[in-house]
């Protein structure tokens, strides 16, 4: 059998050009299939790793996925804020161990600016049980202190003491700027691989101070309050966007969720992060499946291309098959030769595709993380990858049966008669 395999190998080598093109087609399809799988898996992992240790997220009543997306992933916007009174009421409930208020809506050069309390840096957990650490500096102390995530610091090349002007609203090119109340970088967080990296954190009071002379998204005409004048004012926020809740005992989670949802003073929504994340996966499954189907189709197209090449060459190889028969090759040897060629092509294509994907990941890893906040792990191929490669090679062998069968027929019909 190894004799047949080496024959198949030499026969492929002899047709380098078409074989190489076929290899590339298969490799490309494998890159796509494995790439989709990798992005899917790592996106899920990075989403799942973003929040941990939080029992409930509370925001204005809307959809649970929407609340999860804007409060934790900085995707989309809150339709409504919740009043500070409601926050205080719920935070005071006996089952509640800690709360982290979140105020969103402004940005700095495209990065979300989030108003929160200093508790955030102690209580926030991600990737199961990791807490935030400071690479430099510390939490905000002064009203106009800011703490920036690792990606913000890296991309904008900010160091401690850097002045930050917050723009009103989201988007990198906002016209309205809070340039009368500049902030100063007081701390830089270590890399987390979560949206925290792309967030500028300030105190709730600082967030409020920026807006004391604003109403309804615009400065109040004729009213200017300087940064120092604002310090003397009462900067208790009137409202916040959402808040994270940690409980004394996890057993209370559903009771508290119901209490929040039944809160009479204001329509509120409490969600369990894990449940909302699961709903998000369910929502994404359709897109995932569609993407997977497309990649599978591309693989099939690649294999059909291989089939076409093998079949097209077969007619001109009838002489070769007759010669092999004359030196004692049996029809099943001829069949094995053709299947081996297909198997070799599929295997080499799959391996080439895998290598290309790893090369591509290594090259674009940094860019993808900076651009999309998605960390693509460069890990050794796991069971899912090997399964995909095995499937491609298996499908290649199956496809090889078609030219093999024709060659087998030729071998029987032609015998040793040399055609053409």
């Amino acid at each position: 059998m190894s004799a047949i395999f080496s024959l198949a190998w030499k026969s492929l080598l002899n047709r380098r050009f078409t074989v190489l093109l076929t290899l590339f087609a298969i490799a490309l399809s494998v890159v796509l299939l494995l790439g989709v799988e990798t992005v899917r898996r790592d996106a899920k992992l990075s989403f799942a790793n973003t929040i941990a240790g939080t029992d409930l997220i509370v925001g204005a009543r809307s959809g649970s996925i929407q609340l999860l997306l804007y409060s934790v992933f900085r995707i989309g916007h809150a339709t409504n804020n919740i009043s500070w009174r409601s926050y205080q009421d719920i935070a005071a409930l006996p089952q509640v161990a800690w709360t982290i208020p979140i105020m969103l809506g402004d940005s700095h050069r495209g990065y979300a600016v989030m108003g929160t309390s200093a508790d955030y840096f102690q209580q926030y957990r991600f990737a199961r049980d990791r807490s935030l650490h400071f690479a430099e500096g510390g939490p905000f102390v002064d009203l106009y202190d800011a703490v920036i995530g690792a990606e913000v610091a890296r991309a904008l090349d900010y160091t401690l003491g850097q002045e930050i002007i917050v723009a009103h609203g989201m988007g990198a090119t906002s016209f309205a700027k809070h340039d009368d109340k500049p902030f100063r970088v007081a701390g830089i967080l270590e890399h987390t691989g979560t949206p925290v990296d792309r967030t500028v954190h300030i105190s709730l009071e600082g967030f409020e101070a920026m807006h004391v002379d604003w109403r309804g998204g615009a400065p109040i005409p004729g009213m200017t309050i300087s940064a120092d004048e604002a310090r003397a004012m009462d900067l208790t926020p009137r409202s916040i966007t959402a808040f994270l809740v940690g409980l004394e005992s996890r057993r209370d989670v559903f009771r508290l969720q119901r209490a929040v949802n039944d809160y009479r003073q204001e329509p509120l929504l409490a969600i369990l992060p894990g449940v909302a994340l699961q709903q998000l996966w369910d929502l994404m499954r359709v897109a995932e499946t569609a993407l997977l189907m497309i990649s599978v189709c591309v693989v099939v197209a690649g294999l059909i291309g291989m089939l076409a090449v093998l079949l097209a060459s077969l007619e001109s190889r009838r002489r070769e098959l007759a010669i092999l028969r004359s030196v004692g090759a049996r029809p099943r040897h001829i069949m094995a030769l053709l299947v081996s060629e297909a198997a070799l092509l599929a295997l080499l294509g799959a391996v080439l595709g895998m290598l290309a994907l790893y090369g591509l990941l290594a090259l674009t890893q940094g860019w993808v993380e900076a651009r999309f906040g998605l960390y693509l792990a460069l890990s050794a191929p796991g069971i899912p990858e090997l399964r995909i490669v095995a499937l491609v090679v298996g499908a290649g062998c199956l496809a090889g049966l078609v030219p093999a069968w024709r060659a087998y027929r030729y071998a029987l019909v032609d015998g040793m008669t040399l055609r053409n």
Partner: protein
Amino acid sequence: MADDFAIELTDVRFHWPGQSRPVLAIDALQVAAGECLLLRGASGSGKTTLLNLLAGVTTAQQGRVLVLTTDLGRLRSSQRDAFRAAHLGIIFQMFNLIPYLSLVDNVLLPCRFSRQRRAKAVQRHGDLPNAARRLLSGLGLPLDDIGDRSTTELSVGQQQRVAAARALLGSPELIIADEPTSALDTETQESFLQLLFQEVRAIGATLICVSHDPALQPLFDRTVEITTINHSVSS
């Protein structure tokens, strides 16, 4: 073995499926072991069918085809393939070689399909590369001079010598050559055949050569006109 026939055909009838008229009807043909026989016949005389019968690619509907005392009609198709791999060397008219194999790989091809041929070649020449080298230089193709090159760089005459070396590798008992010299020019025809005879005799094999060319007749031990033994043509 000397008093055995290498080939013995008795009352052989062969017709294509669906046709009642046989293309081959031979009452008797005997070839002694060690004989160099010329089977002469034009195309359409049934010589291709006869060769296919001798090589075990097809079987006759009637009669007995004994090759090296083995009744090919009693063997299953896979057994005939194995028999051919072990005992027969075959040379075609031209384009005998596998284009993607080197010269030496082409010569060693029978070893890939027959353990017996491989063992004999090793026994006779020490190892396989040496077997290929000895056979090629015996046929006037010294490897040391031309090197193990791609077969596409060889002339037609050189290709025929490689094909002959391949047929002789591992000392098969029967060599079948189908118009081996028709692609060669007249000067090289005779020298090729002389070298072939020499090597065939060295391993004690029987040679059956098919050709339409009457000029080759004097070089062979015996000549048989296919038209005289195959009465499906004359009748």
